[in-house]
């Protein structure tokens, strides 16, 4: 029997009542009227001690008795056909236990430098590496292309001769799948909206008061998680597989392994206790997982196969690059009229170079047209990467918006307000960001600073969406000594779901976070989300709360006769169960637990549909960034960031803020440093390390002030929404706008390295003199 509850919902303190129908056995959703003890506060990580003491064991650290070490032989050419592989010398190398090709039959077609050819398992990693050197591969080298512009040309070597199926993971946007044609290396264009034509948008823009048009370029960024991809596989019986995996999706890895080896799901167990970052690249089992399992079966011993940093850069995913031609127009009152976006990019041998998300979903206007294409090149495949497509799209769009604002002599922040009139959340965020950053004090004229170091301040919007997944099963076990354990299969990538689980369970049960134990990261536990699309917290947290709530109800049933009352009159707080109306009549949690029949009980919470759709389906963010540009050297330093974001009701502020900070730094690093460079002549990545592929360090980081704007929807029992992805969308665009404000020069190409900035400055000087 569903029941109706009246909730306080809305943005920040601006709350209104809303009647929400919820199932009878569900708790009243947390809403704007609840001030909670732990939820939304700063609860330190529950695994902090393990991590600071080095005791946290990652897949990288798993050592099993008799474990072998496996390594891939990878193609040194970007395009080739392999018809012959001679392993006769290698198999005799000391310690070598198994050698297997990735493909049972030759020829093997190679499409990028670094593609897997075969794998060797040996007693030591060194032996495996040495054995690889003894393998003779006969390459029939083919023509290749790694430059997407060359790849588009008519006579370019084709990467695929067949139609390519788009492969999506949990990290990609649902509904991104597109039915498009493929010609040569170009897959697309994907036109949106379906009935739009370039003529219509051109006409709409032509009648606009002001139009800006420019082309923006973004680079390929690799995920570069600190723990590389990999697995340790152990066949515990002929038809039973145990696998430690550095993954964002234990259940997907289980399904893939079960599928590959035709095993029942119940015979495959995936374990991910601690995991060193993924950012979207670690969804499937990967060819490394399958090969490790094959080698282990062949060699009859456990096998460890962890990639190294170079393989990480080459083979297991990246953020595709882009070339975006943007044309946008506005009326003289500053209202956007339309946006036209023509975009292409390469995800190497993969797909997913679309960039239109921000252009479609941030502003309110009438006319839109986009054409997006994937260009295949002989390079490692792209993969979902923290808000796929969005940092690229926002880099272009947010600079174009800025340019249009300057052209219309409207303050860039004001311009963004004018064009999001119906989005209450965005309006609130723009206001907070303006106040925090002292935006009003900003000199409206770009390039106004005297002297060689020029400072500027730029703003950009971000957008993301709300996904949550369904049917997750969380169990709360209460033992008769009062201890509580919450269990779910979900993996913790470091984003802190373990801490979130503890926080919610403690809140609901009226216990302390330290009273709650958690077991996660195991496919033998209840179904949990894959961590992609920022679904983990929004998806899992209601099931956690509902499970704890069900456990609490059981405890109330046990306590009711003891307190001579009925269960519905009881509440739990501070380790006690008491009568709501008469809190002095209470029992300690432990006293009640003693009366649990048998040893323990388990209460299940299940993630179902949300109670209702969100009024505004997007998740937002505004970032304002201050930079200093050294006009003598071109060096840009991001000095300060003000970030305002929303994620429904935050569960633990420490983890939420850390997601925002991490997203910003990845954005700064994307804006200023990171760049995968392939040599056009050899097709080989020239900076497949951390020496030349530069990632921001502690000294490159700005001061960050972040504000999490609470938004209460009452859509689920916790009201939580993820934050992992939106935080990285706006950053590069905001840096670009800040550079413009500092210098009067637009740098339309990422990364905005000193050479590009200096050359842009020189070009401006040249043009003005």
């Amino acid at each position, binding site marked *: 029997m569903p029941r109706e509850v009246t909730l306080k919902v809305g943005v920040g303190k601006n709350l209104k009542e809303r009647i929400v129908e919820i199932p009878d056995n569900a708790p009243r959703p947390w809403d704007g009227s609840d001030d909670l003890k732990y939820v939304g506060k700063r609860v330190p990580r529950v695994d902090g001690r393990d991590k600071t*003491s080095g005791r946290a064991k*990652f897949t990288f650290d798993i050592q099993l008795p008799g474990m072998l070490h496996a390594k891939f032989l990878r193609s040194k050419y970007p395009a080739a056909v392999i018809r012959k592989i001679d392993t006769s010398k290698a198999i005799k190398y000391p310690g070598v236990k198994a050698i297997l090709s990735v493909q049972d039959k030759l020829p093997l077609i190679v499409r990028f430098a670094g593609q897997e050819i075969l794998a060797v398992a040996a007693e030591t990693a060194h032996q495996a590496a040495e054995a690889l050197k003894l393998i003779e591969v006969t390459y029939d080298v083919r023509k290749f292309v790694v430059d997407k512009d060359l790849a588009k040309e008519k006579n370019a070597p084709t990467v695929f001769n067949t139609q390519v199926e788009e492969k999506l993971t949990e990290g990609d946007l649902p509904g991104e799948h597109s039915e498009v044609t493929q010609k040569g290396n170009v897959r697309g264009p994907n036109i949106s909206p379906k009935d739009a034509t370039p003529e219509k948008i051109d006409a709409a823009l032509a009648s606009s008061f002001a139009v800006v048009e420019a082309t923006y370029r973004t680079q390929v960024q690799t995920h570069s998680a600190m723990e590389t991809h990999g697995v340790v596989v152990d066949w515990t019986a002929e038809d039973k597989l145990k696998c430690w995996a550095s993954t964002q999706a234990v259940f997907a890895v289980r399904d893939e392994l079960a599928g590959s080896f035709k095993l029942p799901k119940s015979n495959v167990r995936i374990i991910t206790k601690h995991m060193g970052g993924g950012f979207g690249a670690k969804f499937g089992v990967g060819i490394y997982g399958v090969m490790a399992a094959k080698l282990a079966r062949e060699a009859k011993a456990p096998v460890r196969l962890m990639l190294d940093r170079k393989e990480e850069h080459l083979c297991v995913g990246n953020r595709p690059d882009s070339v975006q031609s943007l044309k946008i127009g506005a009326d003289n009152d500053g209202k956007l009229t339309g946006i036209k976006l023509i975009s292409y990019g390469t995800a190497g041998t993969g797909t997913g170079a679309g960039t239109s998300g921000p252009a479609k979903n941030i502003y309110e206007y009438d006319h839109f047209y986009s054409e997006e294409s994937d260009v295949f090149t002989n390079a490692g495949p792209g993969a979902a990467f923290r808000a796929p497509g969005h940092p690229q799209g926002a880099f272009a769009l947010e600079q174009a918006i800025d340019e249009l604002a300057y052209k219309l002599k409207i303050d860039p922040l004001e311009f963004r307000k004018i064009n999001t009139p119906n989005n209450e959340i965005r309006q609130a965020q723009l206001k907070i960001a303006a106040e925090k950053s002292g935006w009003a004090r900003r000199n409206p004229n770009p390039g106004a600073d005297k002297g060689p170091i020029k400072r500027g301040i730029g703003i950009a919007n971000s957008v993301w969406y709300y996904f949550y997944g369904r049917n997750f099963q969380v169990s709360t076990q209460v033992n008769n000594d009062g201890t509580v354990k919450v269990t779910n299969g979900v993996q913790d990538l470091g984003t802190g779901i373990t801490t979130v689980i503890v926080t919610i369970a403690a809140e609901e049960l009226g216990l302390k976070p330290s009273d709650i134990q958690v077991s996660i990261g195991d496919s033998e536990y209840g179904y949990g989300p894959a961590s992609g699309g920022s679904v983990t917290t929004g998806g899992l947290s209601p099931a956690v709360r509902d499970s704890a709530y069900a456990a609490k109800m059981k405890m109330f049933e046990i306590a009711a006769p003891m307190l001579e009352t009925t269960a519905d009159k009881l509440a739990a707080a501070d380790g006690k169960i008491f009568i709501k109306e008469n809190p002095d009549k209470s029992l300690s949690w432990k006293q009640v637990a003693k009366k649990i029949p048998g040893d323990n009980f388990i209460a299940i919470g299940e993630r179902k549909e949300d109670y209702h759709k969100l009024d505004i389906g997007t998740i937002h963010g505004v970032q304002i960034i201050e930079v200093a540009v050294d006009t003598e050297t071109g060096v840009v330093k991001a000095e300060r960031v003000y970030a305002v974001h929303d994620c429904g009701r935050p569960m633990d502020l420490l983890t939420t*803020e850390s997601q925002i900070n991490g997203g910003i730094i990845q954005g700064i690093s994307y804006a200023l440093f990171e760049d995968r460079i392939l040599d056009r002549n050899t097709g080989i990545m020239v900076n497949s390390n*951390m020496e030349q592929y530069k990632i921001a360090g502690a000294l490159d980081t700005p001061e960050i002030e972040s504000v999490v704007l609470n938004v209460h929807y009452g859509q689920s029992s916790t009201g939580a929404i993820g934050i992992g992805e939106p935080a990285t969308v706006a950053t590069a665009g905001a840096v670009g706008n800040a550079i413009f404000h500092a210098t009067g020069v637009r740098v339309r190409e990422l990364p905005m390295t*000193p050479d590009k900035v200096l050359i842009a400055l020189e070009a401006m000087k040249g043009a003005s003199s």
Partner: protein
Amino acid sequence: MLTFYLNQNKIATSLHHGTVLLDFVRRESRLPGTKEGCREGDCGACTVLLGEIADEEIKYRAVNSCLLPIGSLAGKHVVTIEGLNLRENTLLQNAFVDEHASQCGFCTPGFILSLTDFLLNNPTLNFEEAILAVAGNICRCTGYESIKRAIKLLLTEVESRIELSLDKRVPELVRTGQLPEYFNTIPQKLARLEFDVEPENPGKIVAGGTDLFVQQADKLLKQPLQFIDDGQQSREIYRENDQCIVGASATMEEVRKTPVFREILPEIDTYSKLIASKPIRERATLAGNIVNASPIADFVILLLALEAKLILQIGSASRTVDLHNFYLGYKKLDLQEDEHIHNISIPIPNPGFKFNFEKVSRRTHLDIASVNTAAFFAVEENKITDARISAGGVAPIPLLLKNTNAFLQDKIIDPAIVESAMKIAAEEISPISDVRGSAEYKRRLLQQFIFAHFHTQFPELIGAEVLA
């Protein structure tokens, strides 16, 4: 047998001396707390402490275990994260927990080790220097904000609870529960440790290993190695008449701390921050920097401007070469097979000289320069009596700008001569386009730097407006 201490345990091993410590602790000793992120010294996940007795006191320094061959460990103490743990979390570990400074946590042990080095060694315990101590540690998750908060919390806690004077930090940190007790017994244990100093067998010379083990870790496992970083003597840095003599195995950090070198380069602390990371500088030798012959080697650029000379030896025969004549072409040296650098000799300039160093890289810290340059000027009443400008990243070798320097000789400093010097410099270099920037950019940058050399050293003569 090679013997050393790893945490509280004595280790005796006959593994190849070229095995890197990271592999030793993870694979042989099964201590997985030390992480691996790059194996090239660029991420800091593998940071450990290396302790050794010097001047009767034990000194620890953070180093990258991925580039440290075990052959360098004889008689020393290695501390991994496992060796720091106590029953309770330390203030440092607690600060990381409380401030959420660990997200996925893969980088965390490295940060803890780098900051332990900071607590053990840094003269002043302030925030700016603590951040420098982790400049070599990459974290992909946290955005460093929480790490910075943790550092601030740590510093307040330490300040209120521990008296950290400059010396005797080990016993004080043990007394206050920040280091395990066994640290106090290590000096005696090391003193009692018997280890054969390996005979000087001929083989590939390994100094700090920070180039070698990046470039050819595999190969080094198959050949005889000669470790020269041991003998105290070769690490000495001292004054001899008007020269500063730097031993072949003196490291960048050792040089930085030595008074006679600081007399020559009073700003060395500032320059050091732009060179590698502290754990790398703790191992990297000047001689290694010279022999590696990277066209953008920072210390070489400094030494070129200082007119350094090399004393080379084969057996007992020795000869002296000017550093600027040492480079014959890209990675081609005036160094014979079996010959090694015995000493580096740097003239101590007369007081009143001017010196400046500039470097630009994509990241300001722990990054290789696009272009770097140093300038030494001796000046009498605005007249240049000696100019030595060097530049890296603009030619196949680290370059002394001979034409520019000759032009500047005996000139009165004014905007016109600076402009001419910029032009001449641009003509005598031959930069190429690569990952670190286009040739055009490098040329432009060097010109800006030449200007900066004058502008920073002679602001009253060369104002900022000259450039515009």
